[in-house]
């Protein structure tokens, strides 16, 4: 299951009818926590192809306590779908009971590290498995944020056993937005912790004072992100890779074509590795 695609509602019927060959499908957990035809269709998809559950609503890095009811519903879905991977984000979305439907930024300090670790442990204990935590796309940073993001993720892994879902597009977007070096970022990620890679397109927003990249999942993967992906494959080995697309969703074939591009880079990386081993 090298490369998979994000499965969105408009493509489900076509996927069930045509059964395209893909490594796995990934869905947003929060879209499948009800009953009815939506989750029944996901069960049918799951019969032929592994499914990964990608959560966006647990608010693991926030100030509010963990939403136990939400976690129990996720547990029920995990039991029903038996996902190949379960992931969430290094972000928050809930405060004072208001759910803001976004992956919001936090200062990377010891307090957040302690609180986030504790919540990841709670989640892993309830689900009876480890999860992956994704680096978010970031558009701002806080003054008091002493821990670099890759070190923060690495420390979460060391404390809780969770893995890292490395979103290479987010690495590119975030580092470019703060004039940092994406290669330095990749070099600072503990290689053994990476359990999945995400790829997606981004938009370029020309604000008055400076250009901001926006992780909108609305286009093909950009060339510099493919370049970073090559580096990531060589550094982290072949881990499951996902093509994500959410805004201006194209035909399913376009996503499969992006997945085929990623698969070619996986093959190239593997042959480079064989070459190194045999040399």
């Amino acid at each position, binding site marked *: 299951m090298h490369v998979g695609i994000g499965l969105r509602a408009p493509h489900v019927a076509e996927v069930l009818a045509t059964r395209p060959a893909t490594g796995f499908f990934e869905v947003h957990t*929060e*879209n499948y*926590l*009800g*009953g*009815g*035809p*939506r989750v*029944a269709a996901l069960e049918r998809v799951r019969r032929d192809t592994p499914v990964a559950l990608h959560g*966006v*609503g*647990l*608010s693991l890095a*926030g*100030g*509010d306590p963990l*939403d136990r009811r*939400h976690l129990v519903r996720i547990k029920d879905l995990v039991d029903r779908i038996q996902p190949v991977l379960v992931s969430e984000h290094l972000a*928050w*979305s*809930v*405060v*004072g*009971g*208001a*759910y*803001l*439907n*976004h992956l*919001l*930024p*936090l*200062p990377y300090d010891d*307090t*957040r590290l302690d*609180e986030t670790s504790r919540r990841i442990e709670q989640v892993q204990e309830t689900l009876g498995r480890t999860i992956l935590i994704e680096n978010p796309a970031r*558009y*701002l*940073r*806080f*003054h*008091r944020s002493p821990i670099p993001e890759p070190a923060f993720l690495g420390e979460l892994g060391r404390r809780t056993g969770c893995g890292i879902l490395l979103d290479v597009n987010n690495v590119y977007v975030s580092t470019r*937005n*703060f*004039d940092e070096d994406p290669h330095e970022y990749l070099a600072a990620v503990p290689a053994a912790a990476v359990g999945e890679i995400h790829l997606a397109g981004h938009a370029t*927003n020309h*604000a008055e*004072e*400076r250009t*901001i990249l*926006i992780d909108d999942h609305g286009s093909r993967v950009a060339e510099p992100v493919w370049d970073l992906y090559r580096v990531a494959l060589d550094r982290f080995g072949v881990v499951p890779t996902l093509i994500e697309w959410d805004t201006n969703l194209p035909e399913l074939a376009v996503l499969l074509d992006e997945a085929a591009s990623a698969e070619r880079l996986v093959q190239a990386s593997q042959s480079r590795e064989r070459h190194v081993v045999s040399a």
Partner: protein
Amino acid sequence: MSSAHELDRGFAAALLGEEDHEIVAEIQGDGLDPSARIAIYRNHVFATLTEALEATYPVVVRLVDRRFFGYAADRFIRERPPAGPCVFEYGESLADFLASLPPCRDLVYLPDVARLEWALNRALHAEDAVPLDRRWLADVPADEIGTVRLVLHPSVSLMRSPWPIDRIWRSNQADADPGATVSLDEGGACLTIHRAGDDVVFRTLTPSSYTFRRALADDLDLERAVDAARSVDPSFDLAGTLRELLDEGLIVGGTVSPR
């Protein structure tokens, strides 16, 4: 700002359009006004939640015009942000909100149209449940049948409106006759909304059938439910109504309380 909770609270307040100077002091500019950086997050929150509301309320969007809906959604999101993480569960109170919005005051039917659309959305995502085997009811001794309480399928909603919201809804579907008009004088509607297979459906009920189903939903026993229905219409047909409910697979449980 001392705690994570306070910082998040300040950030959320800035997102929802309140005072942002405290949180702005915590944010690095990096060549851009910190408020402009917060606005990037705000844009996403409002765009995605507005999109979710538009998907749940397509007829309301048509009735008030998409631009006005955007304005109403913006205010609604600020005043009543989601109380849970699933966007398909967001927006139940939009009907009440629209009822309180002065520009909508003349659209007297609008809140009930919104309630119908919410019931359709709710039915689509309601938990699954297995219909009760019809033999279960047949096996209840005749002298205990009045004590039976029946459980309706989780997707069922019952609605009564003084306005012809069923006809308003149908005349605003893509396949409707564009020349058709609905008069508010046509009278109201009693509706049942539920999931049938992969589809969500609604249909009109007689006032007595509505009253009977309402009584079941309120956990009254059959004797009291029949009394309520017969007070509306003395010729209420119990056997026929139960058969309808069983045929539609809408009874998913039952209990008998032996006297």
